[in-house]
């Protein structure tokens, strides 16, 4: 709101002095930077670290699923020491630890890894460049967003070490479970989770305000709405989703916090009894209320996870097919349609709560409707490939892989949207398979594509193609080996969130089916392998900073959009001269044009 100025007004002449170039010190350059590119990089690095951490939590869980009640290799003893016997007695993962890791894996992946990477990092770095702006509209607010995110992450990490351990009630934190778990500890994991979430939500809200304002106000001269690159549209809609969907979760988070700390009963029904007897509360609250408020955010949130990746992929596909995107306008209307419909599908996660058949039918209908715009975008991207002379570089490989992966994730979602079939599939590994196809091989591939694509702009050097291709091939194979078997397990009835993967159920004679439990081993080994295939990426990322092939020009991919019309790397203020836009975003291979691409800023 009041953050547009970054300097003392006492100099008497407004902001003419903002760009005296004195070399900023370490703190103001790397930590308290207000430059959107540095903030984007801060977001990116922090988010990648959290992505890796979330993955490690999952590896520990996967080991337990494949080899129930065997000590965790390498870190088992450390965990036993650090977290105590309740969590990891003798290095073996206890149920509480599995639940804590599971809840934190989900939370970290969604709120601390993917959203910050997709929206915070790519959105920050690329959006102002693509619309021809010198920075975000509110640079100091931007810095505040990052810092709130960072501290939210710190609180989440610290929660592992409070008495009772981290939150254990799933990333969904359903009440009453979330309120009753560890109720005897004044500060427990769930309380920390809620405090962390309030920080993260505030960060996202400030970010959303900033992004939307930037896109509305700071578009360069001539950059009309229909000349915006699709990436910017995706970020724009994402901003609105965050802006309007997060506050209800913030409200819910505050109420659950009050339930936990002041012992109220917002989400606790009357007559609640646990193994310890009746719970001493006033009761009268509504567990369903939490679910409504949670999913009112969490459904739009899945579009927050996917839309930026779609935006990245669209840019890369247009660039590497050397063709305009097919149906750019319909893609724009589709993404706006998703933005609206995303707010009225949330209760498809609640078919089994007994909220009534009429309500279920309503949400089933809207859910089927929202699949239409998603299909439009995916189809448009597929058709865009048609007849292109495709350059198969690393970014393009990841972008191409995104399409079928997201396709599988999306199509397997339809049976979950019909309430009749969802009754069977709900809370099974089928669900885990479905949404991971969207967020892991889907979104993550899209984001990897973006890293390889914009790396030359940010650093002036390419990442190694060879290492990139190894990274791609290995990840593609492993991702599918991990998540495809989950569909089979789920269809055969294996539940999610079971700390021994269902060994006690199936092994205990309840429809013994060792076949699907064997698959647990395949999945776990593939997950470990997936981890190894990230090493080329990590190495490549740092090694190329110093030793990567230098770019030949400011526009190494021969791209049309404004982000490539800046010096490399872009300086503070981004553009050497104020850019003016004369044409649409994807003028590739225009008949009669001098080159096979015509930048948006080229007059005539």
């Amino acid at each position: 709101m009041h953050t547009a100025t970054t300097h003392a007004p006492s100099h008497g002449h407004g902001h003419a002095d903002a760009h005296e170039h004195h070399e900023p010190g370490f703190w103001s350059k790397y930590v308290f930077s207000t430059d959107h590119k540095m903030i984007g990089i801060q977001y990116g690095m922090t988010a990648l670290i959290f992505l890796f951490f979330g993955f490690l939590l999952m590896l520990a869980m996967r080991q337990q699923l494949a080899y129930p009640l065997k000590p965790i290799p390498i870190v088992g003893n450390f965990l036993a020491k650090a977290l105590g016997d309740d969590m990891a007695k003798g290095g073996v993962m206890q149920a509480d630890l599995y639940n804590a890791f599971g809840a934190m894996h989900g939370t970290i992946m969604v709120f601390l890894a993917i959203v910050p990477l997709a929206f915070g990092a790519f959105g920050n770095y690329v959006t102002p460049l693509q619309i021809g702006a010198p920075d975000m509209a509110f640079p100091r607010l931007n810095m505040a967003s990052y810092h709130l995110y960072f501290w939210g992450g710190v609180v989440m990490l610290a929660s592992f070490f409070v008495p009772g351990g981290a939150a254990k009630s799933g990333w969904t934190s359903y009440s009453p479970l979330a309120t009753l778990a560890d109720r005897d500890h004044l500060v427990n994991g769930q309380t920390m989770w809620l405090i962390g979430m309030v920080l993260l939500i505030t960060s996202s809200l400030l970010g959303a305000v900033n992004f939307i304002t930037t896109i509305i106000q700071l578009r360069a001269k001539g950059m009309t709405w229909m000349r915006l690159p699709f990436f910017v549209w995706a970020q724009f809609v994402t901003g609105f989703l965050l802006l309007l969907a997060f506050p209800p979760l913030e409200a819910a988070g505050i109420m659950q916090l009050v339930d936990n700390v002041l012992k109220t009963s917002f989400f606790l029904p009357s007559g609640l009894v646990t193994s310890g007897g009746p719970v001493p509360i006033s009761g009268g609250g509504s567990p369903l209320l939490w679910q409504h408020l949670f999913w009112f955010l969490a459904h739009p949130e899945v579009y927050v996870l996917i839309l930026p990746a779609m935006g990245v992929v669209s840019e890369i596909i247009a660039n590497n097919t050397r063709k305009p995107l097919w149906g750019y306008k319909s893609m724009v209307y589709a993404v706006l349609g998703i933005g609206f419909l995303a707010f009225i599908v949330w209760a498809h996660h609640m078919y089994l709560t007994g909220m009534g058949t009429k309500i279920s039918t309503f949400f089933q209908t809207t859910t089927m409707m929202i699949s239409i715009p998603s299909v439009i975008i995916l189809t448009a991207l597929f058709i865009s490939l048609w007849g292109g002379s495709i350059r198969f570089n690393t970014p393009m490989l990841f972008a191409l892989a995104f399409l079928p992966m997201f396709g599988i994730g999306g199509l397997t979602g339809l049976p979950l949207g019909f309430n009749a079939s969802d009754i069977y599939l709900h809370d099974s590994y089928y669900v885990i398979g479905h949404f991971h196809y969207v967020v892991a091989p889907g979104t993550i591939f899209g984001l990897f594509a973006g890293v390889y694509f914009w790396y030359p702009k940010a650093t002036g050097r390419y990442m190694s193609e060879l290492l990139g291709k190894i990274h791609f091939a290995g990840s593609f194979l492993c991702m599918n080996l991990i998540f495809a078997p989950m569909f089979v397990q789920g269809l055969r009835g294996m539940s999610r969130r079971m700390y021994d993967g269902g060994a006690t159920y199936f092994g205990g004679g309840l429809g013994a089916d060792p076949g699907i439990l064997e698959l647990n081993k395949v999945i776990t080994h593939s997950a470990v392998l997936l981890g190894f295939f990230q090493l080329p990426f990590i190495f490549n990322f740092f090694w190329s900073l110093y030793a990567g092939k230098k770019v030949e020009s400011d526009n190494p991919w021969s791209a049309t959009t404004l982000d490539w019309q800046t010096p490399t790397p872009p300086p503070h203020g981004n553009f050497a001269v104020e850019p003016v836009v004369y044409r649409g975003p994807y003028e590739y291979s225009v008949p009669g044009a001098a080159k096979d691409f015509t930048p948006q800023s080229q007059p005539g």
Partner: protein
Amino acid sequence: MEIPYTVKPRPDTGLYNAKVGIWLFLASEVMLFGALFSSYILLRVGAPDGFWPDVATGWPHGLLNIPIGTFNTAVLIISSVTVVMAWAALKQGDFSKFRRFMLVTLGCALGFLCIKTYEYNEKFTHYVIRMKDGTAVTGHLDINGHSPRFWTLATITDKKMTSVKVHVDVPNQFRYPVGMKRPEVSHEAGEHGGGEHAAREIKTADITFLQAFVPATGTFFAIYFTMTFLHGLHVFGGAMVLGYFTFFGRKMYESDPERMTNRIEVGGLFWHFVDLVWIFLFPVMYLL
């Protein structure tokens, strides 16, 4: 390159950046309070029937102080008017007039918060007591002329008190929604002005439950305290920002009056929103 439109409006949108920003922020605030009001509705619809003195399990009525609430509403509305006048004064280039109006606004904010604190305190000293025979009363404890806060049954038993003196509330017409019958109250002691009976001694042994009007006492109190506290935080935050410009804004005003005026406009928009929330909160919590 400079960030454009920080002060002057962008021609095609007609807005400067901060104004777009504040409207977006207010949209998210609408969703925040919208979710809380929706929760209020859901909790209330799901609550069992039950009025005074069944305030811990039912949905109580008339326990909030309506005259004081009305007064506070007026205070906030006045502050909303003065914040506009302050902005107008700045537009006319009269800084000291701006300051005067702003001081009234800040005074209102402070007054509002003080009154709210007083109201909270009134609730924390007000108790619901349930007896073994199934009856219940509400009222203030009287411990040697003092009215303690936050006591529970455990406090009394810990102090080894065999009985407590309570000024029991009389069911007045506000404690029942329209159309509900008021129960007869038959006590020897006569009614006196504040809607309270004279003191009554209640034996500790007869009491099964004793709790002040705190959030944990019932979902009505939970949502009342949560929403009004959150609103109070907004009042506080808004007052801090406006106060900053009132006391430290002169330099900015002298170097760049337009920017300063914009900021007051943006701050004023936020202030109006905070008032608006109260205008919904007051009838919903106090009257309905």
